[in-house]
């Protein structure tokens, strides 16, 4: 989507003071939210409510982690919601009630993610299709395949284990939050401390530079799309566990919400800047605000209006020189 003029060279970002400031700024904003909301509505700080918020935030958080990889290489993935729904439908297709089938179901979901991510990545990297259109097309195709397969109504048999993942607690913490933490640690390590992670930033921040130093950009880009789709497939299963039932549109809206949260969390939509922790803060800010709307007795529609205002305001705040659109 970026026009040629935007492909200016940009220094490679590190964990610099500026970045830390931005992250702490976000954290401060989140805390400010929490303080204001808890004054307005004492119910907010009740442990039960906080755990609820975290449980709700978990599947979106996972999707955002994956989305971050795509955004960092100047892409985006609209197919995450379709991948979530398809992985949920796939899970029911085993008609399994035995928890022993759980690993098989997860393996199937991951395989689905790898397949979709590879197609997305191939179209974007090798064919030069705009990420928007490539992932839009896979969304529509997946949707068609999913409905054809289920003939409109999906099964609903899932092992008990899914309820544990979605709603269960382990040591007092929601299980799906623990999954989010684990994924964050793994993907955070990959992005910020591995060779591949540095390549991701270079390919997104300075594609020409990446080419000149001999990075196989295409492989990096395809890997990012695969990571995104795999994480989305896992998030789909977690969301099914939370909601307690499967339908054809599991995860609807997550494609846009994940982009909103990532952008709010400081991931630049034209690549190369941001980190996973910021992205997660974006998710929590979004979910806390949604929760506040409900607690304060405002109409639910206010959530949508807030979301729109926040994403525009946040992206306006983040613009730095490197990111300027020309003229």
């Amino acid at each position, binding site marked *: 989507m970026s026009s040629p003029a935007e492909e200016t060279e940009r220094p490679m970002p590190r964990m610099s003071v500026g970045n830390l400031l931005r992250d702490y700024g976000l954290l401060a904003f989140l805390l400010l939210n929490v303080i204001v909301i808890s004054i307005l509505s004492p119910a907010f700080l009740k442990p039960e409510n906080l755990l609820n918020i975290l449980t709700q935030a978990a599947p979106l958080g996972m999707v955002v982690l994956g989305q971050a990889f795509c955004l960092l290489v100047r892409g985006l993935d609209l197919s995450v919601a379709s991948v979530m729904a398809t992985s949920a439908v796939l899970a029911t297709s085993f008609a399994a009630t035995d928890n022993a089938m759980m690993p098989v179901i997860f393996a199937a979901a991951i395989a689905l993610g790898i397949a979709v991510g590879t197609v997305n990545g191939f179209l974007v990297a090798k064919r030069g299709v705009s990420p928007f259109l490539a992932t839009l097309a*896979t969304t529509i195709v997946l949707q068609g395949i999913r409905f054809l397969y289920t003939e409109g109504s999906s099964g609903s048999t899932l092992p008990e284990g899914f309820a544990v993942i979605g709603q269960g607690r382990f040591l007092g913490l929601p299980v799906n939050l623990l999954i989010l933490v684990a994924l964050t640690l793994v993907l955070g390590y990959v992005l910020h401390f591995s060779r591949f992670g540095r390549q991701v930033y270079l390919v997104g921040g300075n594609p020409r530079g990446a080419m000149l130093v001999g990075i196989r950009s295409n492989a990096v880009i395809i890997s990012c799309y695969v990571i995104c789709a795999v994480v989305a497939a896992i998030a789909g299963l977690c969301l099914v566990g939370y909601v307690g039932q499967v339908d054809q549109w599991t995860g609807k809206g997550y494609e846009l919400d994940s982009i*909103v949260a990532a952008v709010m969390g400081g991931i630049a939509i034209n690549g190369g800047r941001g980190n996973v922790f910021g992205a997660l803060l974006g998710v929590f800010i979004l979910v806390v605000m949604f929760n506040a709307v409900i607690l304060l007795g405002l109409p639910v529609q206010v959530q*949508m209006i807030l979301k*729109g205002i926040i*994403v525009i305001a946040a992206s306006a705040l983040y613009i730095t020189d490197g990111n300027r659109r020309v003229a």
Partner: protein
Amino acid sequence: MTPTQSTPASTAVTRWFRRIPLSLIVVVALLLLLTVTGTVLSDRFATSRNFLNVFQQAASLGVVSLGQTLVVLTGGIDLSVGAMISLTSNLTSGLIDGNPDRVLPVVIGVVALGAAIGCMNGLLTHYLRIHPLIVTLGMASILQGVTLLYSLAPLGKVPQEFQVLAYGRFLGVSIGGLAMIGLFVLAAIFLHFTRTGNAIYAVGGDPRGAHLMGISVARTLAIAYGLSGALAAITGIYLVSRMGTGDPWRGEGFELASITPVVVGGTILAGGRGGVLGTLLGVYLISLLNNLLNFLDVSTFYQWIIQGLIIITAVAINVERGRRA
């Protein structure tokens, strides 16, 4: 046949022919292929009655895609058209509420509202330097929220005469469909024969260059997005005329559906290349295809798959061209 290249007339023709973008040739070829296939496969397809129906049904997709084309030509994208249609459709029928006297002021007001919100998209993109995807996505969320605050259910109704727009026929041809063609012609004239129209191409092709040439990028973007907003509002009004009432979710899916004809018609998402003729043909291609698949009792599910494959194919063809050029 002897080679006729030496005669001036034929060189002119060849040159003219060479200037037609490949994507247009492909769309026309696909349209012909589709028509032939349809004629062979279904005896109800190739009837003037059916073609007139498709002509009528294509109107809503056509108008909203026309607006999308203008925005895409500037190198942007307008994801707020769906929410805009939802807002304007329920607002129109809610405000008119069956009263014929209110039709004209409400219609003018709603189109102006669409244009104003669209302008805002363009100006936000330019002055806050935010990616159009984010601006219009945020705007879509805001508009849909406002729409649902206004009413959660379809509101009001419109007078019988108002439905002329959707169902009226002039010499047997749908008035809505003719109006759509009229808008396309106006847009083509605007793009090719006015300074602002040329500026849209210039800004899409090279924003910095356009700025250096003295083109006001802000003004150009405001006009392109404003027109897209106004055309989305017109689509909303048209859909009210077709259904007889508004619906707070009427526009759902239009934001993405409106992009398909644009890219199938050869306008590239990076901006600066393409045009409204391609979009018009793209709209008819998609509408005819869906019509044929309905006749053949092909499930919606296959229709989705085919639509996805068409997007990929169309874009891949244009990418190849871009590389060679």
